């Protein structure tokens, strides 16, 4: 009897819990539905009183992308490695890393619609996003090949840049480790600049659709609205520091003053003092960057002489320019590879420009990491090492 009573009490408690959970679930579902109905702007989807979705034949787009780039049914891919790199601005291995990172994420993965049809494949979205970032194609341009709607192609670069920044920013946009720093120092010492840990420079990225309220702040000296980015790179144009988002009205000094690089230098956290180098018979602990005349005359920078009037100063200026122009080369190579930063940006917010700029910098570093073994400077270093 006692046992039955306990059993009944337990049963009642279970029922109460089930009712409470059921009510809570119903409330959650109702809230979600209400939120979606009221505040979320409906985009696409099959709903009553709307035009039915176009039958874009997603399978055809996925099959085309797979056949052209990776091969289907044992057949070799249509595009070779060189053609692939031309089409997507990155080696096939880097493309596969992006695919592996994003293909199971909620927006990227292949879903099934309410009518039971398979939706677009993640490789279609990735191809469309890279077409937009690499060639700055309009969103409806890739429709013919990727078989995606304009709204999906507009979302793809945004999602991709967010994914890349979240996943790889800490890996690819960081300060060099001690081992990497010593390698950079040895290479710059071979170029005549021992103690130099890279070249630093700023550039402007024009912002075509800048809001009028922000226009005065982002107005640069050339009369355009722009955003400034600051970079530090080595001889291979591998980026070791990247800052983007400063208003275009700032010059190099002001950007530097707000840069985390200088904040770390002021805090004594960078550059590391345990690495010393010898210069003209003196041992120095303070490493420096090669910079142009736009920077202040700090011990942190090796700048060219203003008026070189002796052979000694002329030779120094010539070699300092060679090291300093690494950053200029970066600003030539990166936009030519990813045209989205070559042409004026058409974003409405600075945060999207920051995401896009950082993700392009990550792509650039991924590419350099894959291909830097074949660079002329690397081969020259290897030859020197072999001779010794």
């Amino acid at each position, binding site marked *: 009897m006692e046992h039955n009573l306990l059993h009944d009490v337990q049963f009642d408690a279970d029922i109460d819990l089930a009712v409470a959970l059921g009510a809570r679930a119903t409330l959650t579902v109702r809230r979600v539905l209400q939120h979606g109905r009221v505040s979320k702007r409906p985009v696409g989807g099959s709903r009553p009183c709307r035009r039915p979705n176009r039958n874009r034949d997603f399978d055809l787009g996925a099959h085309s992308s797979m056949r052209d780039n990776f091969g289907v049914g044992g057949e070799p891919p249509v595009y070779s490695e060189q053609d692939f790199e031309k089409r997507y601005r990155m080696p096939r291995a880097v493309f596969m890393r992006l695919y592996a990172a994003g293909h199971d994420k909620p927006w990227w993965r292949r879903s099934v619609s309410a009518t039971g049809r398979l939706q677009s494949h993640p490789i279609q979205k990735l191809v469309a996003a890279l077409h937009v970032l690499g060639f700055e194609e309009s969103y409806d341009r890739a429709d013919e090949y990727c078989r995606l709607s304009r709204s999906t192609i507009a979302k793809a670069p945004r999602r991709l840049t967010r994914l890349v920044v979240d996943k790889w920013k800490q890996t690819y946009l960081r300060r060099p480790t001690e081992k990497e720093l010593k390698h950079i120092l040895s290479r710059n010492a071979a170029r005549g600049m021992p103690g130099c840990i890279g070249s630093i420079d700023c550039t402007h990225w024009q912002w075509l659709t800048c809001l009028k309220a922000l226009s005065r702040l982002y107005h640069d000296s050339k009369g355009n609205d722009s955003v400034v980015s600051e970079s530090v790179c080595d001889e291979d144009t591998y980026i070791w520091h990247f800052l983007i988002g400063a208003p275009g009205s700032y010059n190099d000094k002001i950007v530097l003053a707000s840069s985390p690089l200088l904040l770390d230098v*002021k805090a*004594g956290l960078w550059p590391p003092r345990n690495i010393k180098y010898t210069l*003209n018979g003196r041992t120095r*602990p*303070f490493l420096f960057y090669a910079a142009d005349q736009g920077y202040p005359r700090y011990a942190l*920078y*090796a*700048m060219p*002489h203003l008026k070189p009037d002796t052979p000694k100063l002329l*030779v120094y200026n010539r070699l300092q320019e060679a090291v300093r122009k690494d950053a200029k080369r970066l600003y030539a190579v990166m936009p030519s590879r990813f045209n989205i930063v070559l042409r004026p940006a058409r974003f409405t917010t600075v945060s999207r420009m920051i995401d896009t700029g950082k993700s392009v910098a990550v792509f650039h570093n991924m590419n350099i990491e894959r291909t830097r073994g074949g660079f002329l400077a690397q081969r020259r270093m290897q030859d020197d090492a072999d001779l010794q």
Partner: protein
Amino acid sequence: MDEDKPRRVASGERARNEATRGQRASPNREAAFYLDDEPRGPGVWGPAVAEDADLGRGSGASTEQDAPVGALGYTDGAECEAKDTSAHWALLQDLSEHIFADRGRLLLPYV
């Protein structure tokens, strides 16, 4: 007439007067603040300044060197070291000498 007009003083001089006014008014009271006119060291890891060495306060190690990372003395010394203009010119001078001595090899890729 001219004596009634307030005398214009530079901000540094005014600060100096205000700092020493308390001492003049009442010798027993401490001043509100002190002007930091002491010579500053070249940086966190630099040698001690000459005055410190004379006083025996440090021998090859400044007060900033003993400060832990993140302390005010440490960051102050690091900022001084990074922004030192004379060190910048010395660096340029040494780099010019170093490069000129080996100019034949270094200029070879650019000829």
